[in-house]
C-alpha cells in the first residue's frame, strides 16, 4: 500500500478510458474497415448523438428517477423544428432556440406532474411518452420534413480534421464540458446534486427539492431536443420514425451510457465524462459487432448482454470498494 497511485487511476472513468482504447486497438487490428476514414467519420456522427441522449437521461437519473419519454420528446422537438424551418420559414438560429425551448417545456411537464403527484417518474414519463408521440404523429400525419434549409443540413454532413470528425461530436463534447462546469462549480449544479442525493436533507437545508427536480427534467428535455436537432442535421430530414416506435430506439443507449459511466441509479451522483466514455464504448462495440458480422439481428441481443454485464461489473466494483474501505 506504499506505492502511490494517482486518484484518477482508481476511478471508473479511467477503467472506461482503458476499455475504449483496448477496443479501438482490437478493432483496428482485427477488422479491415474500422480505421478507415469513412468508418471513423460515421462513428463520430453516431457517437455524438448517443452522448447527448446519455446526458439527457443522466440528468434525470440524478433525481433517482428516469425519463422513458426521452425518445418521443426528442423526435417531437425535431419535428417541431422541421415545421419551424420548412413550413414557417423561420431563420435557423431562431428555430433552434424555439426547439430547445419546446424541449424544455415538454421536460417541464414531465417534472411538474412527477413532483405534484409524487408518483415515480417512470409511470409519468410512460404516459407522456405516448402523449407526445401520439400528438406528434397526429399533427405531422407521419410525414417527414425533407426540405430543410441547406445551411442546416450542411452542418450535419460537414467534415473536420482532415475529414475524420463530424462537428456534431465537437458539439457533444462541448456540452459535456458545460455540464461538467455546471455540476462541479456552480451553485445551482451543487443544489441539483444535493437534492438528488438526499432529498430530505436538502429540503432541510433550504433547497427547494421540487424545483430542483423540475429543473432536472427541463434540462433533460433540453438535451433531448438537442439530440433531436443533431439527428435531424445528420439525416438531413426530420422523420417521425427516426427514433423508432414511441422513440424506443433511444432508450438502450440512453441507459447504457450513464450506467456504464458510473451514474448511480438511486440518484445523487453524476459522471459527465463517464457518460461520454460510456456512450463511446457502446458505439464502438455496436460498430464492432457489425464489422465482425454477427448478423444484424443479433446486435440487439449482444447490446442487452453488455448492459447486463456492465451493471453486474458495476455492482462488483461497488462491493469490492466497500470491502476495501472497511479494511482500511
Amino acid at each position: 500500500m506504499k506505492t502511490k497511485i494517482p486518484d484518477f487511476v482508481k476511478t471508473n472513468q479511467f477503467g472506461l478510458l482503458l476499455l475504449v482504447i483496448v477496443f479501438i486497438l482490437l478493432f483496428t487490428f482485427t477488422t479491415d474497415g474500422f480505421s478507415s476514414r469513412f468508418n471513423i467519420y460515421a462513428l463520430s456522427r453516431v457517437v455524438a448523438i448517443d452522448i447527448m441522449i446519455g446526458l439527457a437521461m443522466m440528468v434525470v437519473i440524478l433525481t433517482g428517477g428516469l425519463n422513458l419519454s426521452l425518445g418521443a420528446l426528442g423526435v417531437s422537438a425535431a419535428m417541431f423544428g422541421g415545421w419551424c424551418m420548412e413550413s414557417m420559414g423561420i431563420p435557423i438560429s431562431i428555430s433552434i432556440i424555439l426547439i430547445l425551448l419546446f424541449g424544455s417545456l415538454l421536460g417541464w411537464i414531465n417534472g411538474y406532474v412527477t413532483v405534484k403527484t409524487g408518483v415515480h417518474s417512470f409511470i409519468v414519463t410512460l404516459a407522456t411518452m405516448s402523449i407526445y408521440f401520439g400528438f406528434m404523429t397526429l399533427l405531422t400525419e407521419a410525414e417527414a420534413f425533407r426540405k430543410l434549409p441547406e445551411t442546416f443540413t450542411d452542418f450535419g454532413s460537414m467534415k473536420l480534421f482532415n475529414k475524420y470528425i463530424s462537428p456534431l461530436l465537437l458539439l457533444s463534447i462541448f456540452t459535456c464540458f458545460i455540464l461538467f462546469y455546471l455540476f462541479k462549480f456552480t451553485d445551482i449544479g451543487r443544489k441539483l446534486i444535493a437534492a438528488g442525493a438526499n432529498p430530505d436533507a436538502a429540503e432541510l437545508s433550504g433547497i427547494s427539492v421540487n424545483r430542483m427536480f423540475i429543473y432536472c427534467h427541463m434540462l433533460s428535455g433540453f438535451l433531448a431536443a438537442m439530440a433531436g436537432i443533431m439527428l435531424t442535421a445528420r439525416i438531413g430530414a426530420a422523420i417521425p420514425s427516426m427514433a423508432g416506435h414511441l422513440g424506443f430506439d433511444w432508450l438502450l443507449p440512453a441507459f447504457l451510457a450513464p450506467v456504464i459511466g458510473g451514474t448511480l441509479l438511486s440518484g445523487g451522483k453524476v459522471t459527465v465524462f463517464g457518460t461520454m466514455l460510456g456512450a463511446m464504448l457502446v458505439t464502438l462495440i455496436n460498430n464492432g459487432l457489425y464489422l465482425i458480422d454477427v448478423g444484424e439481428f443479433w446486435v440487439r441481443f449482444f447490446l442487452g448482454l453488455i448492459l447486463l454485464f456492465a451493471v453486474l461489473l458495476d455492482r462488483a466494483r461497488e462491493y469490492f470498494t466497500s470491502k476495501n474501505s472497511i479494511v482500511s
Partner: protein
Amino acid sequence: MSNLLKKDWFGLGLVIILGSILISFFKPAFISPFNLYVLMLSVSLMLVVAMSQMIIIAIGQMNLSVGAIGGLVAISFTGLMEVYDLSILPAMFIGLGIGVICGFINGYITVKTGISAFIITLATLYIFKGMNLGITEAQPFYEIPEAIKYFGNAKIVGPIPFLIIIPVIITFLMWVLMNRTSLGRYMLAYGNNVQSSELMGISSTKIVVYAHIISGLLAAIGGMLVVCRLQLGTPNIGDSWLLPSFAAPVIGGAILAGGKVDVIATAFGVLLVAIISQTLVIFKIDPFFVQIFLGFMILIAVFINRYREYREDRRNKVFSNE
C-alpha cells in the same frame, strides 16, 4: 354499502357501466354482437398481460420484458410446430417452460445483485427480443395447426369467444393467489416494506423469483393467445404491450411503490381501456388518439390515486387527534 364504496373497483365499475350505457345510446353499434366479440377478444389478451405486470408491481418492481417474453414464446411455440413438426401439447409446454425460464432469469438476477429490476428487465428485454429476431430473422411462421386456428376463432355462445376462458381462469387464480394464499400476502408484504418483511422471516429470494416466474409464465400464455388469435407467429408480438400492461393496474389503483394491487380493479382497468379504445374506433377517431388517450388516462388515474391518498391521510389525522 360504505364498505363497497371504498373498494378500488367500485368506482371503476360504475364508470364502465354508465359509460357503456351512454356510448350505446349514441352509437347502438357498440352493443352489436360483432363489436362485443372484438371487445372481449382484446380484453382476453390484455387481461393476461396486465396480470403479468401486476404481480411485479405488487412486489414494488417493474418488468419491461413482458412483451419480449411474450414475443419469444410466441415464435418458439409456432416455430417448434412448423420447423420441428412438434404437436401442439409439447410445443405448448416448451413455450410455457421458456416463459418460466425467462422469468426466473429476471427474478434471480434482480434479487441476487440488488440492481433495480428496471435495468435488469431492460437488458433482458433486448436479450429476449434479440434472440427472437436472431432466430426468425424478422420472418413470421405461418403454418399453424387447424386446432389452434379453431380455438382462436370459436365462440362459446353468442358473441363470447372461446379464447376468453383462459384469461378468466387466470384472473380467478390470481385473485386467489393475492387474497387467499400466504405466498400472495408475502409478496404484498415484501412490496410494502422489504426490510420488515425480511425481519418477519420471509425469504426475499423466494418471493422475488416466484413473482418473476409467474410474470414470465403469464407473458408466455399471453404470447400464445395472440398466436391463436392472429393465426400466425410474428416476431413483433408483444412489441406494444408495455403501455397497456402498466395502464390497467395503475388505473385499477395499484401503487407503484408496491404493496398494493387489486386483481378485480386491474381487470376493470383492462375493460375500461378496451372499451375506450373500441369507442374511439367506432367514432372513427384517428387510432393515434387511442395512444394519447391511454397516456392521459394513466395521468388522470395517478392524480385521482394521489387525491384519495391525501384524503385518507387527512381522515387518519383527524382520528389520531381525537
